[in-house]
């Protein structure tokens, strides 16, 4: 008997679910082998600078072949040269822990600003030898963030600043060509921000989603579509705990049992999915996982029901995998949300594109985004270009197919929060086209 099939009408013609070859690439995001020896973040910055600088040096001959390269300390006034280093953005609005001590204790509450950019921000380039303030109109402080590594062409001014004439970013990495799959459509469903257990989550909405993708709803056509779904990815914030329980107070036993309810509810729901479709679940900012990136996989003991299926995979955040030789890379949203606080762009996809051009998933880590202090590597460095780059827990669905300079084609996807929008994203593996699947439970008048 086949493992997952659905009976259709009276013809006893079972629709088989399609399958895909899955390969996990999450090994680099594991921290099980790391040992904390009291190191500081200078180590990860060094690893990042060295990796990116070697890369940028290899690109320099194609960009400006005859210009000399020097270190920050080796700058000579008026001489045109190229410098490579880590950007530091000085922002006056960025909250600083020392402000709490310097200001007098007034009663004015701290206004929660969503975006800390201001027109006064300026950029500084830093390498091991020193730092230099950057000026000029070519380099826009609103685009860059602390932690990105770039190469700059320019010259030192009389005021000991560096006047930038041109910028080189690493650009999209090399992409392994996707084999052209003939004929069949296979779909990957992305969903995030389920917030099970939260006050605004609608259990019926998610149940509708589950019933639809497992083929329990709809006629033969709908079920055929559902049978073509080969993978479900849950990108973070799957549970929401009532904030009253998380304020650090001691909990009564009744409250303690309330703590385990969201995850139990989630397990029941995910079991229904895992019984039929391969499921990847990633931790998000609100999930019971560690705080710093890379977030480690949610523990199997949280999912006693679902983890008994071999289709259930608990993954890290960021998550990287390959499905039928299509490579995926994505996060639960912390990296892009942090970029939004410290830089400006037209939309979230532009932030995503920048991270890929800078070849770094989370440039603001560890500056403003919590990160494990790696000593010998930077796991957020993007080595090969993914075919699909997704980010979860966003305000709305956005998607674009962007081409790189060497012909790389990347599908960028912003997955909206399911609890707010009731929408999931469906991607066709054959042609990388994307659409949403929305579920509403309001009866329209």
């Amino acid at each position: 008997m086949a493992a997952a099939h659905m009976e259709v009408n009276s013809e006893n013609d079972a629709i088989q679910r399609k399958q895909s070859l899955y390969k996990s690439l999450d090994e680099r995001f594991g921290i099980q082998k790391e040992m904390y020896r009291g190191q500081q973040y200078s180590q990860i910055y060094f690893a990042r600078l060295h990796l990116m600088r070697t890369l940028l040096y290899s690109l320099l001959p194609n960009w400006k072949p005859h210009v000399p390269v020097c270190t920050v300390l080796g700058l000579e006034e008026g001489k045109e040269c190229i410098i490579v280093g880590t950007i530091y953005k000085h922002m006056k609005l960025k909250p600083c822990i020392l402000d709490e001590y310097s200001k007098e204790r007034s009663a004015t509450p701290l206004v929660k600003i969503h975006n800390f950019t201001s027109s006064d921000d300026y950029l500084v380039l830093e390498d091991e030898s020193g730092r230099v303030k950057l000026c000029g109109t070519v380099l826009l402080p609103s685009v860059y963030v602390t932690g990105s590594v770039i190469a700059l062409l320019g010259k030192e001014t009389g005021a000991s600043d560096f006047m930038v004439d041109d910028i080189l970013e690493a650009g999209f990495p090399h992409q392994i060509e996707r084999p052209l799959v003939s004929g069949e459509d296979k779909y990957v469903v992305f969903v995030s921000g389920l917030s099970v257990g939260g006050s605004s989550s609608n259990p019926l909405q998610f149940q509708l989603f589950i019933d639809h993708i497992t083929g329990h709803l709809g006629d033969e056509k709908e079920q055929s579509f559902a049978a073509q779904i080969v993978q479900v990815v849950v990108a973070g914030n799957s549970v929401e705990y009532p904030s009253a329980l998380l304020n650090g107070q001691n909990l009564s036993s009744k409250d303690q049992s309330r703590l385990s309810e969201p995850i139990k509810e989630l397990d029941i729901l995910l079991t229904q999915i895992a019984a039929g479709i391969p499921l990847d679940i990633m931790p998000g900012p609100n999930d019971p996982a560690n705080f710093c990136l890379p977030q480690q996989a949610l523990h199997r003991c949280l999912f006693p029901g679902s983890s008994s299926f071999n289709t259930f995979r608990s993954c890290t955040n960021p998550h990287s995998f390959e499905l039928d030789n299509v490579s995926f890379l994505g996060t639960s949203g912390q990296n892009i949300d942090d970029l939004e606080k410290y830089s400006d762009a037209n939309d979230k996809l532009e932030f995503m594109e920048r991270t890929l051009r800078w070849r770094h998933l989370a440039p603001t880590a560890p500056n403003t985004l919590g990160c494990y202090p790696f000593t010998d590597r930077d796991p957020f460095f993007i080595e090969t270009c993914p075919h699909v780059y997704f980010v979860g827990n966003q305000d709305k669905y956005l998607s674009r197919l962007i081409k790189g300079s060497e012909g790389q084609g990347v599908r960028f996807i912003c997955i909206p929060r399911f609890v707010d929008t009731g929408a999931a994203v469906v991607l066709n593996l054959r042609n990388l086209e994307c659409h949403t699947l929305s579920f509403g439970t309001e009866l329209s008048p």
Partner: protein
Amino acid sequence: MASASDMKGFFRQKKKAAGGGAIGKSKPKKSTSFKKPKQSASYGTDQVQPTAIISHGSLDLQDDYDSNEEVLRQFDMSMAYGPCLGMSRLDRLERAKALGLNPPKEVERLLKAGKVNAECLWDGRI
């Protein structure tokens, strides 16, 4: 210099060094003709380094610091291999090799031979 009877009971405080126990170190290079003060540290004392913190009978101006250690300290201080704090010297060497920085073979030889301090020079001091 210091008389042998005063030396007993003074244990040189040392972090886990690859060299093993601290007793039995070679005599410090500098011989000093300072008179060893008998007072201990207290408010109003004019003694710079009273008995309690003088180890091995001389002022703690130079701890064991031979030419091998000098080579390793140069390795620690070298900017090219990145920050040295928070990593053992061998780990930093391995990282330098992995990143293709070609650290000097001398350093590798010294660290693998084992009779040197495994941690960087700032370890425990910062």
